Protein backbone atom coordinates (compact mmCIF):
# COMPACT_ATOMS: atom_id res chain seq x y z
CA UNK A 1 0.00 0.00 0.00
CA UNK A 2 1.30 3.42 -0.85
CA UNK A 3 0.63 6.37 1.38
CA UNK A 4 -0.16 9.69 -0.20
CA UNK A 5 1.51 12.43 1.79
CA UNK A 6 -0.13 15.78 2.23
CA UNK A 7 1.96 18.64 0.80
CA UNK A 8 2.99 19.79 4.27
CA UNK A 9 4.21 16.29 5.11
CA UNK A 10 6.36 15.84 2.03
CA UNK A 11 10.08 16.11 2.59
CA UNK A 12 12.54 16.60 -0.20
CA UNK A 13 16.08 15.31 0.04
CA UNK A 14 17.01 17.49 3.04
CA UNK A 15 18.94 14.76 4.83
CA UNK A 16 21.04 13.59 1.87
CA UNK A 17 24.72 12.95 2.65
CA UNK A 18 26.54 15.11 0.19
CA UNK A 19 30.02 15.02 -1.22
CA UNK A 20 30.52 18.38 0.47
CA UNK A 21 29.65 16.83 3.84
CA UNK A 22 32.15 14.05 3.33
CA UNK A 23 34.99 16.38 2.33
CA UNK A 24 33.87 19.18 4.69
CA UNK A 25 34.16 21.66 1.83
CA UNK A 26 30.95 23.55 1.23
CA UNK A 27 29.76 26.19 -1.20
CA UNK A 28 28.85 29.26 0.83
CA UNK A 29 26.14 31.77 -0.04
CA UNK A 30 26.24 34.56 2.56
CA UNK A 31 23.37 36.58 1.04
CA UNK A 32 23.02 40.35 0.79
CA UNK A 33 22.40 41.29 4.43
CA UNK A 34 25.48 39.46 5.78
CA UNK A 35 27.50 41.46 3.26
CA UNK A 36 25.77 44.78 3.96
CA UNK A 37 24.20 45.74 7.29
CA UNK A 38 25.00 42.54 9.26
CA UNK A 39 28.68 42.00 8.50
CA UNK A 40 29.08 40.60 12.03
CA UNK A 41 27.02 37.61 10.86
CA UNK A 42 29.44 36.92 8.00
CA UNK A 43 32.47 37.27 10.25
CA UNK A 44 31.11 35.09 13.06
CA UNK A 45 30.12 32.42 10.52
CA UNK A 46 33.69 32.25 9.23
CA UNK A 47 35.05 32.09 12.80
CA UNK A 48 32.65 29.27 13.64
CA UNK A 49 33.57 27.37 10.46
CA UNK A 50 37.23 27.51 11.42
CA UNK A 51 36.41 26.30 14.92
CA UNK A 52 34.40 23.28 13.75
CA UNK A 53 36.85 22.42 11.00
CA UNK A 54 34.84 23.01 7.86
CA UNK A 55 35.76 25.02 4.80
CA UNK A 56 33.17 27.50 3.51
CA UNK A 57 34.01 28.49 -0.04
CA UNK A 58 32.19 31.73 -0.77
CA UNK A 59 30.44 31.91 -4.12
CA UNK A 60 31.68 35.44 -4.74
CA UNK A 61 29.98 35.91 -8.12
CA UNK A 62 26.57 34.78 -6.82
CA UNK A 63 23.67 37.21 -7.04
CA UNK A 64 20.87 37.95 -4.61
CA UNK A 65 18.51 34.96 -4.18
CA UNK A 66 15.54 37.13 -5.06
CA UNK A 67 14.58 37.72 -1.43
CA UNK A 68 10.91 36.77 -2.05
CA UNK A 69 10.43 40.10 -3.81
CA UNK A 70 11.51 39.31 -7.39
CA UNK A 71 8.82 36.63 -7.56
CA UNK A 72 6.27 39.43 -7.20
CA UNK A 73 7.05 40.69 -10.68
CA UNK A 74 8.13 37.63 -12.65
CA UNK A 75 7.58 33.92 -12.09
CA UNK A 76 10.86 32.78 -13.68
CA UNK A 77 13.54 35.20 -12.54
CA UNK A 78 14.34 33.77 -9.09
CA UNK A 79 14.67 30.31 -10.60
CA UNK A 80 17.16 31.43 -13.27
CA UNK A 81 19.15 33.73 -10.94
CA UNK A 82 19.63 30.86 -8.51
CA UNK A 83 20.41 28.34 -11.27
CA UNK A 84 23.30 30.66 -12.14
CA UNK A 85 24.49 30.45 -8.51
CA UNK A 86 24.19 26.65 -8.45
CA UNK A 87 26.15 26.42 -11.71
CA UNK A 88 28.96 28.33 -9.99
CA UNK A 89 28.98 25.84 -7.10
CA UNK A 90 29.05 22.91 -9.52
CA UNK A 91 31.95 24.49 -11.43
CA UNK A 92 33.88 24.48 -8.13
CA UNK A 93 33.02 20.80 -7.54
CA UNK A 94 30.69 21.58 -4.63
CA UNK A 95 27.28 19.98 -4.19
CA UNK A 96 26.10 21.82 -1.08
CA UNK A 97 25.32 25.51 -0.95
CA UNK A 98 25.21 26.65 2.66
CA UNK A 99 23.10 29.66 3.61
CA UNK A 100 22.99 31.73 6.80
CA UNK A 101 19.62 33.35 6.19
CA UNK A 102 16.13 31.85 6.44
CA UNK A 103 14.85 33.84 3.47
CA UNK A 104 17.77 32.75 1.27
CA UNK A 105 17.19 29.14 2.38
CA UNK A 106 13.51 29.11 1.53
CA UNK A 107 13.72 30.92 -1.77
CA UNK A 108 16.82 29.15 -3.03
CA UNK A 109 15.31 25.78 -2.12
CA UNK A 110 12.04 26.70 -3.82
CA UNK A 111 13.94 27.68 -6.99
CA UNK A 112 15.97 24.48 -6.86
CA UNK A 113 12.87 22.35 -6.33
CA UNK A 114 11.26 23.92 -9.40
CA UNK A 115 14.40 23.20 -11.42
CA UNK A 116 14.85 19.63 -10.22
CA UNK A 117 11.21 18.64 -10.58
CA UNK A 118 10.88 19.66 -14.21
CA UNK A 119 13.21 18.91 -17.11
CA UNK A 120 11.44 21.64 -19.00
CA UNK A 121 12.19 24.32 -16.41
CA UNK A 122 15.79 23.17 -16.04
CA UNK A 123 16.23 23.33 -19.84
CA UNK A 124 14.61 26.77 -19.89
CA UNK A 125 17.05 28.06 -17.25
CA UNK A 126 20.00 26.47 -19.02
CA UNK A 127 18.89 28.04 -22.29
CA UNK A 128 19.48 31.44 -20.66
CA UNK A 129 22.62 30.45 -18.72
CA UNK A 130 24.00 29.11 -22.04
CA UNK A 131 24.11 32.68 -23.38
CA UNK A 132 27.11 33.23 -21.11
CA UNK A 133 28.46 29.70 -21.20
CA UNK A 134 27.11 28.44 -17.86
CA UNK A 135 25.10 25.29 -17.17
CA UNK A 136 23.38 23.86 -14.10
CA UNK A 137 23.28 20.06 -13.97
CA UNK A 138 20.98 19.80 -10.97
CA UNK A 139 23.40 18.37 -8.39
CA UNK A 140 23.22 21.12 -5.77
CA UNK A 141 21.35 21.07 -2.49
CA UNK A 142 20.70 24.23 -0.49
CA UNK A 143 21.12 23.82 3.26
CA UNK A 144 21.15 26.20 6.17
CA UNK A 145 24.15 26.33 8.50
CA UNK A 146 21.78 25.18 11.29
CA UNK A 147 21.15 21.92 9.43
CA UNK A 148 24.83 21.46 8.73
CA UNK A 149 25.63 21.83 12.45
CA UNK A 150 23.07 19.19 13.40
CA UNK A 151 23.40 16.72 10.49
CA UNK A 152 27.10 16.93 9.59
CA UNK A 153 28.76 17.91 12.89
CA UNK A 154 26.16 16.44 15.23
CA UNK A 155 24.83 17.71 18.52
CA UNK A 156 26.87 15.21 20.55
CA UNK A 157 30.08 16.33 18.87
CA UNK A 158 29.14 19.98 19.30
CA UNK A 159 28.50 19.35 22.99
CA UNK A 160 32.00 17.94 23.31
CA UNK A 161 33.44 21.03 21.64
CA UNK A 162 31.76 23.45 24.05
CA UNK A 163 34.32 25.14 26.27
CA UNK A 164 32.09 27.95 27.52
CA UNK A 165 28.64 26.47 28.28
CA UNK A 166 25.95 29.14 28.47
CA UNK A 167 25.29 28.57 32.17
CA UNK A 168 21.54 28.14 31.76
CA UNK A 169 21.06 31.35 29.77
CA UNK A 170 17.38 31.41 28.83
CA UNK A 171 17.35 31.72 25.06
CA UNK A 172 14.20 32.09 22.95
CA UNK A 173 14.55 30.50 19.51
CA UNK A 174 13.18 32.60 16.64
CA UNK A 175 13.11 30.50 13.48
CA UNK A 176 11.98 32.95 10.84
CA UNK A 177 9.44 31.79 8.31
CA UNK A 178 11.40 30.61 5.32
CA UNK A 179 13.61 28.04 7.00
CA UNK A 180 10.52 26.02 7.98
CA UNK A 181 7.66 27.06 5.69
CA UNK A 182 6.36 25.89 3.36
CA UNK A 183 7.21 22.37 4.49
CA UNK A 184 6.94 21.14 0.89
CA UNK A 185 10.02 23.27 0.13
CA UNK A 186 12.05 22.93 3.33
CA UNK A 187 10.89 19.72 4.97
CA UNK A 188 13.99 19.31 7.08
CA UNK A 189 11.91 19.43 10.25
CA UNK A 190 8.30 19.94 11.24
CA UNK A 191 7.23 23.50 10.51
CA UNK A 192 4.61 23.45 13.25
CA UNK A 193 6.78 21.97 15.96
CA UNK A 194 10.41 22.56 15.04
CA UNK A 195 13.00 21.85 17.71
CA UNK A 196 16.41 22.18 16.05
CA UNK A 197 17.17 25.54 17.66
CA UNK A 198 16.01 24.26 21.04
CA UNK A 199 18.29 21.23 20.65
CA UNK A 200 21.18 23.48 19.71
CA UNK A 201 20.56 25.86 22.63
CA UNK A 202 20.57 22.87 25.01
CA UNK A 203 23.75 21.47 23.43
CA UNK A 204 25.65 24.69 24.12
CA UNK A 205 24.46 24.90 27.72
CA UNK A 206 21.53 27.27 27.42
CA UNK A 207 17.92 26.72 28.37
CA UNK A 208 15.45 27.02 25.48
CA UNK A 209 12.35 29.14 26.09
CA UNK A 210 9.12 27.94 24.52
CA UNK A 211 6.66 30.55 23.22
CA UNK A 212 4.07 30.72 20.46
CA UNK A 213 5.91 33.48 18.59
CA UNK A 214 8.93 31.35 17.72
CA UNK A 215 7.55 30.31 14.32
CA UNK A 216 5.75 33.56 13.56
CA UNK A 217 6.73 36.33 11.18
CA UNK A 218 9.02 39.22 12.19
CA UNK A 219 7.50 41.58 9.63
CA UNK A 220 10.81 42.42 7.94
CA UNK A 221 9.51 41.94 4.41
CA UNK A 222 6.74 44.49 4.86
CA UNK A 223 8.53 47.01 7.07
CA UNK A 224 8.45 49.60 4.29
CA UNK A 225 4.91 48.89 3.04
CA UNK A 226 3.14 50.46 5.99
CA UNK A 227 4.59 52.42 8.91
CA UNK A 228 4.43 50.66 12.24
CA UNK A 229 3.58 47.21 10.91
CA UNK A 230 6.94 45.50 11.53
CA UNK A 231 7.33 46.95 15.06
CA UNK A 232 3.84 45.64 15.88
CA UNK A 233 4.77 42.12 14.76
CA UNK A 234 8.12 42.26 16.53
CA UNK A 235 6.52 43.51 19.75
CA UNK A 236 3.88 40.80 19.74
CA UNK A 237 6.48 38.04 19.41
CA UNK A 238 9.04 39.49 21.81
CA UNK A 239 6.35 40.09 24.45
CA UNK A 240 5.57 36.35 24.41
CA UNK A 241 9.27 35.46 24.66
CA UNK A 242 9.88 37.91 27.49
CA UNK A 243 6.79 36.80 29.42
CA UNK A 244 8.06 33.22 29.24
CA UNK A 245 11.34 34.18 30.81
CA UNK A 246 13.68 34.79 27.85
CA UNK A 247 16.93 36.64 28.49
CA UNK A 248 18.00 36.61 24.85
CA UNK A 249 16.87 35.47 21.39
CA UNK A 250 18.71 33.41 18.79
CA UNK A 251 17.78 33.47 15.11
CA UNK A 252 19.13 31.76 11.98
CA UNK A 253 18.01 34.75 9.87
CA UNK A 254 19.63 38.19 9.61
CA UNK A 255 16.38 39.73 8.37
CA UNK A 256 14.64 38.57 11.56
CA UNK A 257 17.68 39.82 13.47
CA UNK A 258 17.39 43.30 11.94
CA UNK A 259 13.67 43.48 12.69
CA UNK A 260 13.88 42.07 16.24
CA UNK A 261 16.99 44.04 17.16
CA UNK A 262 15.88 47.23 15.43
CA UNK A 263 12.19 47.53 16.21
CA UNK A 264 11.86 46.61 19.90
CA UNK A 265 12.44 50.29 20.68
CA UNK A 266 9.43 51.19 18.51
CA UNK A 267 7.19 48.38 19.75
CA UNK A 268 7.53 49.35 23.42
CA UNK A 269 4.65 51.84 23.25
CA UNK A 270 2.17 49.11 22.34
CA UNK A 271 3.72 45.99 23.87
CA UNK A 272 5.80 47.34 26.73
CA UNK A 273 9.57 47.25 26.91
CA UNK A 274 11.10 43.91 26.02
CA UNK A 275 14.71 44.81 25.13
CA UNK A 276 15.70 41.24 24.28
CA UNK A 277 19.13 41.03 22.64
CA UNK A 278 19.09 38.96 19.43
CA UNK A 279 22.06 36.73 18.65
CA UNK A 280 22.83 35.54 15.16
CA UNK A 281 22.97 31.73 15.26
CA UNK A 282 26.74 31.43 14.61
CA UNK A 283 27.56 34.13 17.16
CA UNK A 284 26.18 32.25 20.13
CA UNK A 285 27.46 28.85 18.99
CA UNK A 286 30.93 30.27 18.29
CA UNK A 287 30.90 31.96 21.70
CA UNK A 288 30.15 28.65 23.45
CA UNK A 289 32.86 26.97 21.43
CA UNK A 290 35.39 29.44 22.75
CA UNK A 291 35.70 32.04 20.02
CA UNK A 292 36.64 35.30 21.80
CA UNK A 293 33.52 37.41 22.44
CA UNK A 294 35.18 40.58 21.19
CA UNK A 295 35.62 39.10 17.69
CA UNK A 296 31.92 38.28 17.21
CA UNK A 297 30.66 41.80 16.51
CA UNK A 298 28.37 41.83 19.55
CA UNK A 299 28.99 45.59 19.80
CA UNK A 300 27.25 46.00 16.42
CA UNK A 301 23.83 45.11 17.83
CA UNK A 302 21.34 47.84 18.70
CA UNK A 303 20.30 45.98 21.87
CA UNK A 304 23.71 45.05 23.24
CA UNK A 305 23.75 41.29 23.96
CA UNK A 306 26.81 41.52 26.21
CA UNK A 307 24.57 42.50 29.15
CA UNK A 308 22.83 39.11 29.02
CA UNK A 309 26.21 37.36 28.95
CA UNK A 310 27.51 39.42 31.88
CA UNK A 311 24.37 38.64 33.91
CA UNK A 312 25.12 34.92 33.57
CA UNK A 313 28.78 35.55 34.40
CA UNK A 314 29.86 34.39 30.95
CA UNK A 315 31.94 37.49 30.28
CA UNK A 316 33.08 40.21 32.61
Amino acid at each position, binding site marked *: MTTTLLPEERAIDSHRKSHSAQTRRYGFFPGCVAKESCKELFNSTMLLAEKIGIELIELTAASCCGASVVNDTNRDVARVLNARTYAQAEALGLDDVITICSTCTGHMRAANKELLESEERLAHANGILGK*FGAKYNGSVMVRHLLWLLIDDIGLDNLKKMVVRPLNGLKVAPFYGCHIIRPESVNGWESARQPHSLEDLITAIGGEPVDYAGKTRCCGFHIQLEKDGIAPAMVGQNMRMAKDNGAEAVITPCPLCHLALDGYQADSAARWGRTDLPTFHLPQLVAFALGVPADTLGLNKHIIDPRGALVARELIS
Partner: protein
Amino acid sequence: MAQITLDIFRFDEATDTVPHRDKVAVNVPPTTTVLDALEAAKAEVDGSISFRRSCRSAICGSCSMNINGVTGLACKTPCNTVMDENGVVSVDPMPNFQPMKDLVVHMDPFWDKYTRLKPYLQPKDKDSDHERERRVDPEDMKKLVQVANCVMCATCYALCPVVSVDPSFAGPAAIAYAYRFIEDVRDDQRGERIAQISDDYLWLCAHCYACSYCPKHVDPHDRIVDVKRAAIKDRVMMNERGPRHALVVNKTIRQTGMLQETEVIQGTVGRFNITGLIKVAPLGLRLASRGKLPPIFMKPIPKVDEIGIIFDALEVPVS
Protein backbone atom coordinates in the same frame (compact mmCIF):
# COMPACT_ATOMS: atom_id res chain seq x y z
CA MET B 1 -12.87 2.62 23.76
CA ALA B 2 -10.24 5.05 24.84
CA GLN B 3 -11.12 8.06 26.85
CA ILE B 4 -10.46 11.43 25.26
CA THR B 5 -10.53 14.52 27.43
CA LEU B 6 -11.50 17.72 25.71
CA ASP B 7 -10.15 20.84 27.40
CA ILE B 8 -12.63 23.38 26.08
CA PHE B 9 -12.54 27.18 26.02
CA ARG B 10 -15.86 28.35 27.46
CA PHE B 11 -17.21 31.86 27.10
CA ASP B 12 -20.55 33.49 26.49
CA GLU B 13 -20.36 37.12 25.45
CA ALA B 14 -23.94 37.66 26.67
CA THR B 15 -23.14 36.77 30.27
CA ASP B 16 -19.38 36.38 30.82
CA THR B 17 -16.65 38.95 31.20
CA VAL B 18 -13.81 36.41 31.22
CA PRO B 19 -13.56 32.96 29.67
CA HIS B 20 -13.00 29.76 31.66
CA ARG B 21 -12.18 26.18 30.66
CA ASP B 22 -14.08 22.93 31.08
CA LYS B 23 -12.59 19.47 30.89
CA VAL B 24 -15.01 17.00 29.37
CA ALA B 25 -14.19 13.28 29.08
CA VAL B 26 -15.78 11.23 26.32
CA ASN B 27 -15.53 7.54 25.47
CA VAL B 28 -14.66 7.45 21.78
CA PRO B 29 -12.05 5.60 19.71
CA PRO B 30 -8.76 7.55 19.53
CA THR B 31 -9.10 7.85 15.75
CA THR B 32 -12.30 9.87 16.22
CA THR B 33 -12.12 13.36 14.75
CA VAL B 34 -12.00 16.27 17.16
CA LEU B 35 -15.38 17.34 15.77
CA ASP B 36 -16.99 13.97 16.53
CA ALA B 37 -15.47 14.04 20.01
CA LEU B 38 -17.05 17.48 20.50
CA GLU B 39 -20.37 16.14 19.20
CA ALA B 40 -20.15 13.31 21.75
CA ALA B 41 -19.38 15.77 24.54
CA LYS B 42 -22.33 17.92 23.54
CA ALA B 43 -24.73 14.97 23.20
CA GLU B 44 -23.68 13.04 26.27
CA VAL B 45 -22.22 15.48 28.79
CA ASP B 46 -23.04 19.14 28.27
CA GLY B 47 -25.56 20.31 25.69
CA SER B 48 -24.47 23.93 26.07
CA ILE B 49 -21.06 23.45 24.43
CA SER B 50 -21.20 25.59 21.28
CA PHE B 51 -19.31 25.16 18.01
CA ARG B 52 -20.08 25.56 14.32
CA ARG B 53 -20.33 22.47 12.16
CA SER B 54 -22.31 21.11 9.28
CA CYS B 55 -20.88 18.64 6.76
CA ARG B 56 -18.32 16.75 8.92
CA SER B 57 -16.23 16.12 5.80
CA ALA B 58 -14.09 19.23 5.12
CA ILE B 59 -16.43 20.73 2.56
CA CYS B 60 -18.54 23.27 4.43
CA GLY B 61 -15.64 25.04 6.16
CA SER B 62 -17.58 25.66 9.40
CA CYS B 63 -15.53 23.95 12.09
CA SER B 64 -12.14 25.67 11.97
CA MET B 65 -10.77 26.13 15.50
CA ASN B 66 -7.53 26.03 17.43
CA ILE B 67 -6.67 22.45 18.33
CA ASN B 68 -3.76 22.24 20.75
CA GLY B 69 -2.73 25.67 19.54
CA VAL B 70 -2.88 24.76 15.85
CA THR B 71 -5.65 26.18 13.68
CA GLY B 72 -7.45 23.71 11.45
CA LEU B 73 -10.71 21.92 10.67
CA ALA B 74 -11.94 19.83 13.62
CA CYS B 75 -13.59 17.41 11.19
CA LYS B 76 -10.26 16.71 9.49
CA THR B 77 -8.19 16.24 12.64
CA PRO B 78 -8.20 12.81 14.33
CA CYS B 79 -7.77 13.01 18.12
CA ASN B 80 -4.85 10.58 18.18
CA THR B 81 -2.76 12.91 15.98
CA VAL B 82 -3.03 15.79 18.43
CA MET B 83 -3.77 14.49 21.94
CA ASP B 84 -1.08 14.55 24.62
CA GLU B 85 0.13 11.52 26.58
CA ASN B 86 -2.91 11.78 28.89
CA GLY B 87 -5.34 11.83 25.98
CA VAL B 88 -6.12 15.53 26.37
CA VAL B 89 -7.06 17.66 23.38
CA SER B 90 -7.45 21.38 24.02
CA VAL B 91 -9.82 23.33 21.79
CA ASP B 92 -10.02 27.09 21.48
CA PRO B 93 -11.75 29.53 19.14
CA MET B 94 -9.81 30.66 16.05
CA PRO B 95 -7.34 33.47 16.80
CA ASN B 96 -7.72 36.84 15.02
CA PHE B 97 -11.48 36.72 15.71
CA GLN B 98 -13.69 37.95 18.56
CA PRO B 99 -15.14 34.97 20.48
CA MET B 100 -18.95 34.87 20.61
CA LYS B 101 -19.80 31.68 22.46
CA ASP B 102 -17.32 28.92 23.27
CA LEU B 103 -15.73 27.95 19.93
CA VAL B 104 -18.03 30.14 17.86
CA VAL B 105 -16.49 33.44 16.76
CA HIS B 106 -17.75 36.60 15.09
CA MET B 107 -16.92 36.01 11.43
CA ASP B 108 -18.02 39.48 10.26
CA PRO B 109 -14.55 40.95 9.50
CA PHE B 110 -13.76 37.92 7.35
CA TRP B 111 -17.05 38.12 5.42
CA ASP B 112 -16.75 41.90 5.07
CA LYS B 113 -13.45 41.52 3.28
CA TYR B 114 -14.88 38.80 1.13
CA THR B 115 -18.01 40.73 0.10
CA ARG B 116 -15.89 43.78 -0.77
CA LEU B 117 -14.49 41.68 -3.61
CA LYS B 118 -17.89 41.41 -5.27
CA PRO B 119 -17.34 37.66 -5.32
CA TYR B 120 -19.44 36.95 -8.38
CA LEU B 121 -18.81 37.06 -12.09
CA GLN B 122 -19.21 40.47 -13.72
CA PRO B 123 -19.17 39.81 -17.46
CA LYS B 124 -19.31 42.47 -20.17
CA ASP B 125 -22.58 41.27 -21.65
CA LYS B 126 -25.85 40.11 -20.14
CA ASP B 127 -26.76 36.51 -19.56
CA SER B 128 -29.81 37.09 -21.74
CA ASP B 129 -27.55 37.89 -24.72
CA HIS B 130 -26.48 34.26 -24.70
CA GLU B 131 -28.52 31.34 -25.91
CA ARG B 132 -26.59 28.98 -23.66
CA GLU B 133 -24.09 29.19 -20.78
CA ARG B 134 -20.74 30.85 -21.47
CA ARG B 135 -18.22 28.21 -22.47
CA VAL B 136 -14.68 28.40 -21.08
CA ASP B 137 -11.70 26.65 -22.57
CA PRO B 138 -10.52 23.95 -20.10
CA GLU B 139 -7.01 25.48 -20.34
CA ASP B 140 -8.36 28.81 -19.06
CA MET B 141 -10.20 27.07 -16.24
CA LYS B 142 -7.20 25.05 -15.07
CA LYS B 143 -5.57 27.85 -13.10
CA LEU B 144 -8.82 28.59 -11.25
CA VAL B 145 -9.56 25.06 -10.06
CA GLN B 146 -7.22 25.07 -7.07
CA VAL B 147 -8.46 28.36 -5.64
CA ALA B 148 -12.08 27.40 -6.34
CA ASN B 149 -11.54 24.66 -3.72
CA CYS B 150 -11.55 27.34 -1.00
CA VAL B 151 -14.30 26.54 1.53
CA MET B 152 -13.91 29.89 3.32
CA CYS B 153 -13.13 28.21 6.62
CA ALA B 154 -10.94 31.23 7.55
CA THR B 155 -8.09 29.04 8.80
CA CYS B 156 -5.61 31.16 6.79
CA TYR B 157 -7.13 34.38 8.11
CA ALA B 158 -6.84 33.10 11.68
CA LEU B 159 -3.20 32.15 11.11
CA CYS B 160 -2.17 35.37 9.36
CA PRO B 161 0.27 37.38 11.51
CA VAL B 162 -0.41 40.55 9.51
CA VAL B 163 -4.15 40.36 10.24
CA SER B 164 -3.28 39.88 13.92
CA VAL B 165 -1.64 43.30 14.12
CA ASP B 166 -3.47 45.15 11.33
CA PRO B 167 -7.09 44.18 10.66
CA SER B 168 -7.20 46.45 7.58
CA PHE B 169 -5.25 43.81 5.63
CA ALA B 170 -7.60 41.86 3.34
CA GLY B 171 -6.07 38.56 4.44
CA PRO B 172 -5.07 35.48 2.44
CA ALA B 173 -8.49 34.05 1.57
CA ALA B 174 -9.92 37.27 0.15
CA ILE B 175 -6.85 37.95 -2.01
CA ALA B 176 -6.79 34.36 -3.28
CA TYR B 177 -10.48 34.65 -4.11
CA ALA B 178 -9.87 37.95 -5.89
CA TYR B 179 -7.44 36.02 -8.10
CA ARG B 180 -10.23 33.60 -8.95
CA PHE B 181 -12.15 36.45 -10.64
CA ILE B 182 -9.18 38.49 -11.88
CA GLU B 183 -8.00 35.53 -13.96
CA ASP B 184 -11.46 34.42 -15.10
CA VAL B 185 -11.67 35.06 -18.86
CA ARG B 186 -15.40 35.74 -18.61
CA ASP B 187 -14.98 38.61 -16.15
CA ASP B 188 -14.85 42.22 -17.30
CA GLN B 189 -13.74 43.92 -14.06
CA ARG B 190 -10.10 42.86 -13.94
CA GLY B 191 -8.70 46.40 -13.55
CA GLU B 192 -11.26 47.43 -10.92
CA ARG B 193 -10.71 44.21 -9.00
CA ILE B 194 -6.93 44.61 -8.94
CA ALA B 195 -7.30 48.24 -7.82
CA GLN B 196 -9.78 47.24 -5.11
CA ILE B 197 -7.58 44.51 -3.65
CA SER B 198 -4.48 46.73 -3.90
CA ASP B 199 -6.43 49.27 -1.87
CA ASP B 200 -7.16 46.55 0.69
CA TYR B 201 -3.42 46.14 1.24
CA LEU B 202 -2.56 43.38 -1.23
CA TRP B 203 1.09 44.35 -0.80
CA LEU B 204 0.98 43.92 2.97
CA CYS B 205 1.38 40.14 2.64
CA ALA B 206 4.61 39.32 4.50
CA HIS B 207 5.44 36.16 2.51
CA CYS B 208 5.42 34.20 5.78
CA TYR B 209 3.59 31.14 4.41
CA ALA B 210 1.50 30.75 7.57
CA CYS B 211 -1.40 30.24 5.12
CA SER B 212 0.39 27.23 3.64
CA TYR B 213 -1.52 25.17 6.24
CA CYS B 214 -4.71 25.62 4.19
CA PRO B 215 -6.77 22.45 4.81
CA LYS B 216 -7.92 22.50 1.16
CA HIS B 217 -4.44 23.10 -0.30
CA VAL B 218 -5.43 26.35 -1.97
CA ASP B 219 -1.96 27.82 -1.23
CA PRO B 220 -3.24 31.39 -0.78
CA HIS B 221 0.31 32.75 -0.70
CA ASP B 222 1.00 31.69 -4.27
CA ARG B 223 -2.26 33.28 -5.44
CA ILE B 224 -1.34 36.51 -3.62
CA VAL B 225 1.90 36.56 -5.61
CA ASP B 226 -0.12 35.94 -8.79
CA VAL B 227 -2.32 38.95 -8.03
CA LYS B 228 0.78 41.09 -7.42
CA ARG B 229 2.15 40.02 -10.80
CA ALA B 230 -1.18 40.93 -12.40
CA ALA B 231 -1.00 44.35 -10.73
CA ILE B 232 2.53 44.94 -12.07
CA LYS B 233 1.62 43.65 -15.53
CA ASP B 234 -1.44 45.87 -15.77
CA ARG B 235 0.44 48.71 -14.03
CA VAL B 236 -2.25 49.27 -11.40
CA MET B 237 -1.45 51.74 -8.57
CA MET B 238 2.21 51.71 -9.47
CA ASN B 239 2.99 54.66 -7.23
CA GLU B 240 2.16 52.73 -4.07
CA ARG B 241 5.01 51.43 -1.93
CA GLY B 242 4.44 47.75 -2.77
CA PRO B 243 5.01 47.95 -6.53
CA ARG B 244 7.79 50.51 -6.05
CA HIS B 245 9.53 48.18 -3.62
CA ALA B 246 9.31 45.25 -6.03
CA LEU B 247 10.66 47.28 -8.94
CA VAL B 248 13.53 48.97 -7.07
CA VAL B 249 14.65 45.57 -5.76
CA ASN B 250 14.74 44.32 -9.35
CA LYS B 251 16.64 47.44 -10.39
CA THR B 252 19.36 47.09 -7.75
CA ILE B 253 19.79 43.38 -8.46
CA ARG B 254 20.16 44.14 -12.14
CA GLN B 255 22.69 46.91 -11.49
CA THR B 256 24.83 45.29 -8.79
CA GLY B 257 23.71 41.65 -8.54
CA MET B 258 22.76 42.34 -4.93
CA LEU B 259 19.74 43.74 -3.15
CA GLN B 260 21.11 47.12 -2.24
CA GLU B 261 19.48 48.06 1.06
CA THR B 262 20.01 51.84 1.00
CA GLU B 263 18.70 52.22 -2.54
CA VAL B 264 15.71 49.97 -1.83
CA ILE B 265 14.62 52.08 1.16
CA GLN B 266 14.83 55.33 -0.79
CA GLY B 267 13.19 53.87 -3.88
CA THR B 268 10.30 52.40 -1.89
CA VAL B 269 9.55 55.30 0.42
CA GLY B 270 10.34 57.93 -2.24
CA ARG B 271 13.55 59.89 -2.58
CA PHE B 272 11.71 63.20 -2.09
CA ASN B 273 9.16 61.97 0.42
CA ILE B 274 10.74 63.77 3.36
CA THR B 275 8.00 62.86 5.89
CA GLY B 276 8.17 59.23 4.82
CA LEU B 277 11.93 59.13 5.11
CA ILE B 278 11.83 60.77 8.54
CA LYS B 279 9.48 58.00 9.69
CA VAL B 280 11.92 55.27 8.67
CA ALA B 281 14.90 57.29 9.94
CA PRO B 282 14.92 56.07 13.59
CA LEU B 283 15.99 52.56 12.59
CA GLY B 284 18.62 54.05 10.27
CA LEU B 285 19.96 56.18 13.11
CA ARG B 286 20.04 53.20 15.46
CA LEU B 287 21.98 51.21 12.87
CA ALA B 288 24.29 54.15 12.25
CA SER B 289 25.02 54.44 15.97
CA ARG B 290 26.42 50.89 15.80
CA GLY B 291 28.39 51.61 12.65
CA LYS B 292 26.33 49.21 10.60
CA LEU B 293 24.53 51.32 8.02
CA PRO B 294 24.46 49.52 4.69
CA PRO B 295 26.82 51.01 2.10
CA ILE B 296 25.42 53.77 -0.13
CA PHE B 297 27.32 52.62 -3.18
CA MET B 298 27.99 48.98 -3.89
CA LYS B 299 30.57 47.30 -5.99
CA PRO B 300 28.76 45.07 -8.49
CA ILE B 301 29.32 41.32 -8.18
CA PRO B 302 31.78 39.74 -10.67
CA LYS B 303 30.16 39.04 -14.06
CA VAL B 304 27.20 41.29 -13.24
CA ASP B 305 26.45 41.56 -16.98
CA GLU B 306 25.12 38.00 -16.74
CA ILE B 307 22.31 39.32 -14.51
CA GLY B 308 21.40 41.78 -17.26
CA ILE B 309 21.29 38.92 -19.78
CA ILE B 310 18.91 36.97 -17.49
CA PHE B 311 16.69 40.00 -16.88
CA ASP B 312 16.52 40.81 -20.60
CA ALA B 313 15.73 37.22 -21.57
CA LEU B 314 12.86 37.10 -19.07
CA GLU B 315 11.75 40.70 -19.63
CA VAL B 316 11.93 41.47 -15.90
CA PRO B 317 10.50 44.93 -15.19
CA VAL B 318 12.77 47.36 -13.33
CA SER B 319 10.62 50.49 -13.53
